[in-house]
């Protein structure tokens, strides 16, 4: 476990620097965007000069960008994410409300794409060049070429509007009063279509990576040796070929988790799921700088954490990883 600890220490030191760059970079980007939170607000209300001025003052937008950045960072040091001007609520509450939804959505679709994708990849890669391999490879290529939002819209029309098997949108039944298992089942029912739309494309990616990796491993000498020792085919496929092809997939898992946080903006909007992606989009449209910073910060922490887990898993799966540091 000492290898994992070393990794953790090194990663944490680097992470803080990364987070700081992310915060300052986002702040400057939003600062460069024309219009501020008050401009975004008066779109729907109008208002005379006095009102606009008073709003700018009470939202702290009359101060210089440097002052605002400094006070944001100072508050952040005290673990205070600040107040959202677009929602007039503490940012911590706004994000905590949405975070579980995004995590469930992301977790479920990652599980779907990784689990089913690698299983099908093993199935295809067990006999490279066979009919089932060709079929799965072609099908996955077609799937990978489909844009996520299009798939989502098609799924809605087919399974929600026409067949009415699943609800069109939302995260749960409105004021259903359900609790416990019934509540969880209700959420699951609502999330079938969004999770499918989000997961299916990456499923294709995992399938193809697994299959390609296995096709390469088959040619290696140790596979021949395993055969010569008379191991069952099943054991060779699962314990030797698939295991050696698994490492790139784990790397991909770390990268993909970051992409899914961003990719879910579209899916969340189409299915009206109240997740972080939609919140980020609203924060940009409403020029709510502290809220967007909060979301990006939370997402960045999430991505760093996931990658850390991936690295630890790597160290666990492949004894060579981190060995050099253990000696140093």
């Amino acid at each position, binding site marked *: 476990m000492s290898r994992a600890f070393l990794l953790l220490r090194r990663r944490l030191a680097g992470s803080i620097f990364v987070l700081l760059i992310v915060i300052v970079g986002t702040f400057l980007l939003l600062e460069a965007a*024309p219009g501020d939170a008050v401009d975004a607000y008066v779109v*729907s209300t109008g208002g005379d000069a006095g009102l606009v001025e008073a709003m700018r003052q009470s939202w702290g937008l009359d101060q210089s960008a440097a002052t605002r950045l400094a006070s944001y960072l100072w508050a952040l040091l005290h673990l205070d994410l600040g107040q959202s001007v677009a929602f*007039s609520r503490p940012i911590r509450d706004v994000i905590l409300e949405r975070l579980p939804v995004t995590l469930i959505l992301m977790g479920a679709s990652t599980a779907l794409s990784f689990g089913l994708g690698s299983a099908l990849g093993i199935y295809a890669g067990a006999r490279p060049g066979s009919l089932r391999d060709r079929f799965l490879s072609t099908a996955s290529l077609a799937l990978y070429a489909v844009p996520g939002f299009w798939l989502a819209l098609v799924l809605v029309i087919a399974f929600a509007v026409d067949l009415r098997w699943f609800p069109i949108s939302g995260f749960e039944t409105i004021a259903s009063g359900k609790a416990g298992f019934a509540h969880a089942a209700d959420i699951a029912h609502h999330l079938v279509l969004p999770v499918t739309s989000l997961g299916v494309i990456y499923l294709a990616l995992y399938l193809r990576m697994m299959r390609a990796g296995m096709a390469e491993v088959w040619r290696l000498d140790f596979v021949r040796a395993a055969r010569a020792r008379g191991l069952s085919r099943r054991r060779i496929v699962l314990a030797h070929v698939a295991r050696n092809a698994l490492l790139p997939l784990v790397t991909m898992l770390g990268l993909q988790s970051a992409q899914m946080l961003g990719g879910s903006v579209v899916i969340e909007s189409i299915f009206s799921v109240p997740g972080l992606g939609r919140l980020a989009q609203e924060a940009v449209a409403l020029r709510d700088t502290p809220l967007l910073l909060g979301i990006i910060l939370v997402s960045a922490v999430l991505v760093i954490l996931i990658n850390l887990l991936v690295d630890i898993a790597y160290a666990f799966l492949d004894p060579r990883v981190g060995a050099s540091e253990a000696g140093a």
Partner: protein
Amino acid sequence: MSDFSLNRRSVLSGAVLLLASTALPTIGWAQEPQKGGRLTVAADSEPRNLNPAIVASNGVFFISSKIVEPLAEADYEGKDGLSPRLAVSWEGSEDGKSVTFKLREGVTWHDGKPFTSADVAFSALQIWKPLQNLGRVVFKDLEAVETPDEHTAVFKFAKPTPFQLIRNALPALTSVVPKHIYENGKIEENQANTAPIGTGPFKFAEHKAGQYYRLEKNTAYWGKSKPNLDEIVYQVLPDRSAAANALEAEEIQLAAFSAVPLADLDRISKVPGLKVVTKGYEGLTYQLVVEINHRRKELADVKVRQAIAHAINKEFVVKTIFLGYAETASGPVPKNDKQFYSADVPNYAFDIAKANALLDEAGYKPGADGKRFKLKLLPAPYFNETKQFGDYLRQALAAIGIDAELVNNDSAAHIKAVYTDHAFDLAVGPPVFRGDPAISTTILAQSGIPDGVPFSNQGGYKNADIDAIIAKAAETLDASARTDLYKEFQKKVVEDLPFINVADWTFISVASDKVGNIADNPRWAVSNWSDTWLAK
């Protein structure tokens, strides 16, 4: 569609209108209203502040008008186009310095406390006048509100204020909130701004951010045996195709405010069990306007502005961009307004040759490449139709040798560019006509408005005659004299074109056939829905 054109035509003559509006087919349900049920409605945004006394905007009213009531609501048939709500009668004094409201008796707030004149006085003086986006203009001379008894409120103005204006402002500007909830602490930060407490037929129940708002029946409502519905749920559907899909799948029963895009209406109107309703928005007319920056020397020349007006084919705009769900505009007051509209204005017929001649006359001859001069054109991004009209206008200008460069911004950036930075030559905007030109229309032409005021004259336009008419109308007490002044205003504006009105449009609702009593007043979508019902 058929009742739409019937309605529009009838607007031209006031007498026919009364007959027509009672005979219109979509609202005259012969069925008996049923009790109970949950009406689920599409919502596209979640306002940060749900207090209609502070934020008088349609997005807020859509939800909060069911909870918090105004003194009076717009009405198709009532006297002066109003029907009583929290006030039962209103009367202006001869000198224009006071208005007396008799308030409804036996009304209680949702928390059980009685509604009295103190609440009205508090709302008017502490909220409408100092804090409300529209009230700051209309109630600027309100000095005091006297409360001789619990059910009388007398508004006292420092300067004579036209009673006609106050009357026209009642539906949108006079939402009454409870004094006992708001009197302690900062009004802008009060909890009731996000969970409103009012006197309306529905109580605020819950808001799940990003998902829905739920309102519950107020069993102690003053309207006898109202409301009909048990619950109203506003389901947040951010995707543009979601409302139409949800209607088809019967997950929602109503999509108001054109939540179903115009392009989908044709298809959705053929779905059995759904109806397209164009009535119920006459009091919330949006105007498609070309805003002009008069600081540009070419545009400071009235001949150039007239040439641009001649280059726009209004019929084409209505037919192609609005798919017929709009009316061509002749001036700054929409044709559906009964009090102020005047047809006695110059007409700029679609005439490319005349436009070219005007530009030649103004001295802007085409160069070797056929272009006279270049412009920056900023279409407002708030509506599909404003963006599409931007594309159309660019082509229309190209036909008369004006090379317009389209600049597309998001909402916040557009507001800043046009109304604060004045970084535009032409802009496409959708100002709202709110039943009286003094509320939000005259500021489009008036000079001397500070920088940064949205939806106002930020084009540097200055016309002493128009300013004088606006000032005179603001202190003219006699309703018909005041109306005449605004007719004069329309004529002057269309002559000199500080901005160009192209079309006026109202919104469309799509509803299930099971929903009854919809669109029964000119601000229906933002009224209290106490008589709306749902068939089992």
